[in-house]
Each structure stands twice: as C-alpha cells, then as structure tokens.
C-alpha cells in the first residue's frame, strides 16, 4: 500500500518536469550578504483576528521567490507586509521583525513612502492610471523628482523595453493607458513599477487575470529582469511556480481546533526551500499533499 502511494507520487512528480532555468538546490546562495529580506517570527493581525502566524523567511538577491498555497492562507498578506502596503488598512498590525538589507522595515523612523520606492508592487488586476501610456510610466519618476523631458523620455522608453511593451506602444504613447488589452495593461503596470528603479519587485498573482499567451510573456519578462531585480511572486498556479521561481514557500492554514468559517483561518508558513526540492522532494506531508494532490 505504501509502495503504491510512493510510486504514484513519483509518477506525478516526474510529470512536473522541473525546467533547467531555475537553479538547482545546491547552487542557491545562503550567504547573509545576499539576503534582501529577513523576516523573523512575523505575525499579522487585522484587529483581533490573526491572519498569519509566526512566519520566518529570508528572500535572497536576484532570485525569484514564489509564495504558493491554498486560498486564504496569508500569502498576499505576507507579501504586502514586505512593502508596508498593509499600513493602508487601519486595523492591520505586524508583530515580529522584518529586516530589509539589515535595517528594520517597521522601525518608527522609517518612512513608508521611501520603502515603497525601493520595493515596488504589481497587482492582480492591472490598474493603469486614467492617463496616457507615457504619463503612466513617467508618473513614478516625476513624483520622485525627475524633471526634464529628455530624461523622462529615456526612462519611459527604457522601462517599456524592459517590460517588453515598447514595440507595441511606441507609436501611441499619448493614447490612454486604459485602452490596452489585459496583458498589455499588466506589462504597462510592470513598466511603471520598473521606471522608479526599485530594488525589489513584488507581484501579487500578476497573471491570474490574463490569458495563457499573455501569461507566458510575463513569465519570460520575469526571467529577463531577474538579473537586475529581486522578485517575490504570489501565485495559485503551481506550474508557473516551477517554471519561474528559484525558491518556493508553501503556506497553509493552521490546523484549526474548530473547523468552520473561512475568515477565521490563520495562515502559516509550512515549508520553504529551493523550488526543485519543494516540488521534487517535499519534506512536510502537507506540502506533499498540496503539491501532488492538485496534480492528481
């Protein structure tokens, strides 16, 4: 019986076909110098409701880290903690330490706006501003003090090229950003984020509202810009995680004493490691169940 289960699991795992673009577990760095984020025992509360408990995770430079797991287990909540977007929710509270390159992110002297300039975010549903394509990309640099048309032109073109959108829109930069298709709009949002030259790019299910072709283009884009940025992506799509990410963190919910309403579940980090290891040789049984169960 056990052997049969093991065999089935191995067959399923073989189908996953971890591609060669992601690093093998042995090649991933663990050096302190390469650590971008270092979260220790982080718990996040909305009022008295504990949304996420005791998360400890390190994000490394120039890697793509994926957060996976079932709905409602706090992946997006943890992501938003990394650029202090949870501050916008009045009842949100973070306990524990979050360090960004050695400095505490939630210290009293830290300015959230400065944080967000360095740690950008792309959202699930593309949200271009009701301005022209040019103005959408130029917005970030403008508010950070860049003046001068020629400089802005350079930045806009460079960002749109990085986002693989330049060729499609270079003749209509003055047209409204709202007129783009879903995939184009999302690439515009990525260009907009890259225009402020952040250090980290956080992505909250960036492809979930897009068709497979648009999804593929954005995944290619992520691989291209990985050399210059550190990327953390929340995704429901496990194949996407295996395609693009170097490390994967699997979140799930606490084993409840009382099962019941979805909004009382507390999220927890179950397992974190190289993607190849998480999908090829998961250590925790919950990870194994999730990774194989979804494919079976």
């Amino acid at each position, binding site marked *: 019986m056990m052997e049969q289960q093991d065999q089935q699991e191995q067959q399923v795992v073989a189908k996953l076909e971890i591609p060669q673009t992601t690093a093998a577990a042995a090649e991933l760095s663990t050096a302190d110098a390469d650590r971008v984020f270092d979260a220790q025992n982080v718990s996040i509360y909305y009022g008295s409701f504990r949304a996420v408990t005791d998360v400890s995770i390190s994000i490394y430079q120039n890697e793509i880290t994926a957060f996976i797991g079932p709905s409602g287990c706090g992946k997006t909540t943890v992501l938003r903690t990394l650029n202090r977007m949870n501050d916008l929710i009045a009842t949100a509270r973070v306990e524990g330490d979050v360090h960004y*390159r050695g400095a505490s992110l939630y210290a009293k002297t830290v300015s959230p706006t400065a944080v967000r300039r360095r740690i950008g975010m792309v959202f699930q549903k593309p949200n271009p501003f009701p301005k022209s394509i040019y103005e959408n990309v130029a917005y970030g640099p403008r508010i950070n003090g860049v003046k001068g048309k020629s400089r802005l032109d*350079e*930045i806009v073109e460079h960002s749109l090229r990085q986002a693989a959108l330049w060729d499609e829109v270079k003749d209509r930069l003055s047209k409204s950003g709202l007129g783009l298709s879903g995939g184009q709009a999302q690439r515009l949002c990525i260009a907009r984020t890259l225009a402020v*030259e952040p250090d980290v790019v956080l992505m909250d299910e960036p492809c979930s509202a897009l068709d497979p072709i648009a999804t593929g283009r954005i995944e290619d884009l992520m691989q291209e810009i990985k050399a210059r940025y550190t990327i953390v992506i929340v995704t429901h799509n496990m194949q996407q995680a295996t395609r693009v990410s170097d490390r994967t963190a699997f979140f799930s919910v606490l084993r409840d004493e009382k099962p019941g309403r979805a909004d009382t579940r507390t999220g927890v980090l179950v397992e974190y490691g190289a993607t190849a290891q998480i999908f090829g040789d998961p250590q925790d049984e919950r990870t194994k169940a999730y990774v194989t169960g979804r494919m079976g």
Partner: protein
Amino acid sequence: MSATVQADPATPAGSASGLSRRRPIGDRGFQALALASGLLVLVILVLIAITMSQQSTSWFSSEGWSGIFSIDWDPAHGKFGAMAFLYGTVVVSLIAIIVAYPVSMGVALLLTEVVPRRWAQPIVYVIDLLAVVPSVVWGLWGILVLVPWLQTAIYPHVASALNGIWVLGNLFGFLNGNYVSGASFFTAGLILAIMITPIVTSLSREVMATVPVTDKEGAYALGATRWEMIRGAVWPHSQVGIIGATLLGLGRAMGETIAVALVIGASPTISSHLFTPGYAMPAVIALQFGEATVGVFRAALIGMGVLLFVLTIIVNLSARAIVGRNARRMRGA
C-alpha cells in the same frame, strides 16, 4: 543606459540607508488644510447658533416665553408675538408635503418601475428643469399670474362646492361672505409643493432603487401584475426611506422664503380657512426686515430666524434618524 531615477544618488536602490525620512512637510500641510476645510462646516453652524441668538436676546427679554409665542403681533405698539408666523409656516409646509407626496411617489415609481431606461431621460430632464427654476421666478409668476387666476377662476368654484360640508367647508369654504383670496395659505402651499417635488422625487427614486431585484422577481414569478408587485415588493422596502425623503422635503418647505413671501398675502392671521391671506416666519423676516431698523423689532425677526434654524435642523435630524434606523434594519443588524 544612463538614465537613472535616483533622486538621491547617495542612496542607491540596493541599500537600506535613506529609508528613514520624516513625512514631508507638503504632505502634512495638505492634510491640515483639508482638515481645516472640513471643520469650517462645524465652525459656521456653531457661529450661526451663537451670534444670531445673541442678536435676538432683547426680544426674549422683553417678551418672555409667553410673549414670544403669543398671537399678538403689532410692531407699532411693541408687541412681537410670533405664533401667527409659526402657524403659517407649519400650515403651508403641511399643505406642501400633502400635495407633493403623491406626485413625487407617482413620478418616482414611473421612473423606477414603468419606464424603460432609455426613455427615462426626458422625465429626468423635466425634474431637473423644475428644480433649477429660481425661487424668485416662481414667486414672480405666482403673484402676477397664478394668484389672480386662482382667485377668479378656481377658488370661488371650489369654495362654493365645498361650502357647508363638515371640515372641508371650514378649510375651503366661504368665510366672511363670498371672499376667497388668491394670495393665501393654500396658494403658498401649492407653490411650495411644486418647488419641493423635485427633491422628494429624486430621494424617493434612490430609495426605490435599493429594493432587491430578487424580491421583485419573486413577486412577478407568482403571477403578480406590476401594481401588485409594487405594493408587495417595492412598497415595504421603500416605505421608511420615502418618509425620510418627505421629511427632508418638509424641511425645505419650511425654510423657503421668497416664493412664499410673495403669494401668501402678508397678513398675520391664524385661521383654519386656507383661502385666507396669512404669513410665515421666513416671509415676515424678508418683508419686514427693511423696516425693522432697530431694537426689539429687529431682534424679533432675527429670533424667528433662530427658531427657523432650530426647527429645520430638528426636522432634518428626524429624517436622517428614521432613514438610518431603516437602513440598519434592512441590513439585518
């Protein structure tokens, strides 16, 4: 690639220094400015209450509680009882909402249940046009056109038809011989009704639009006609909200000055006969302020302004309280 965005070259993106920057002054200044603007409303309301009460104290001190509400109004002899005006304001406003309520109800139902979306626009334009005609134009038309017409062509017939009938005769019959006046309580109420109908209709429409479609479909699915559906599904949900809308209309009617002043007849009387000239608080303030140059007379007029202020606030608060409680009940809280 030479274009960079760093506003501060000393702190490149890949380091954590420079994260600590206090909130810029511009950001805090803007917030303070916005807060100040918001507070202005409170400041103005408080100032209104305080300064106008101050100006009217001599009225209160010379008349006392009984004097203020007496029916004796005779400025030439120092008598400043306001009862006649209070009475007129109440009567005229009541007439206004009694007339406006069914009309507003009918048009609101028309727009939400009967007329298809595309054809609703012209009706909404009519309502908007009605709302934008200035009060003084209603008054001009009222005194020069409506009043003479009513006095010669309508009121006498109504009066002779209803004369002697129990209750209706007292309201609409003949008093003091065959005299009915075009400039009277009823005319003022009528013009007020025309003026408040747009707002009561708009508010009622909003209330009716919140009726859940599932309730309406449920009624239709049982084979109800449209009118039966309205009575069964729309009505119970909207009732309370419409009362709130009507109360808000009442508040508007009580405060309306100019049109009423021109057609009410400017005669401080208390009478149940509606075709008699009367008076109302805002009307007397507008018409007599020029002559009240000093002393208790002016204090009395300003005092009536305070009374009006308090009354309309009470009516408004009641309207909101009723609507608020209904909203909570509907949500199941």
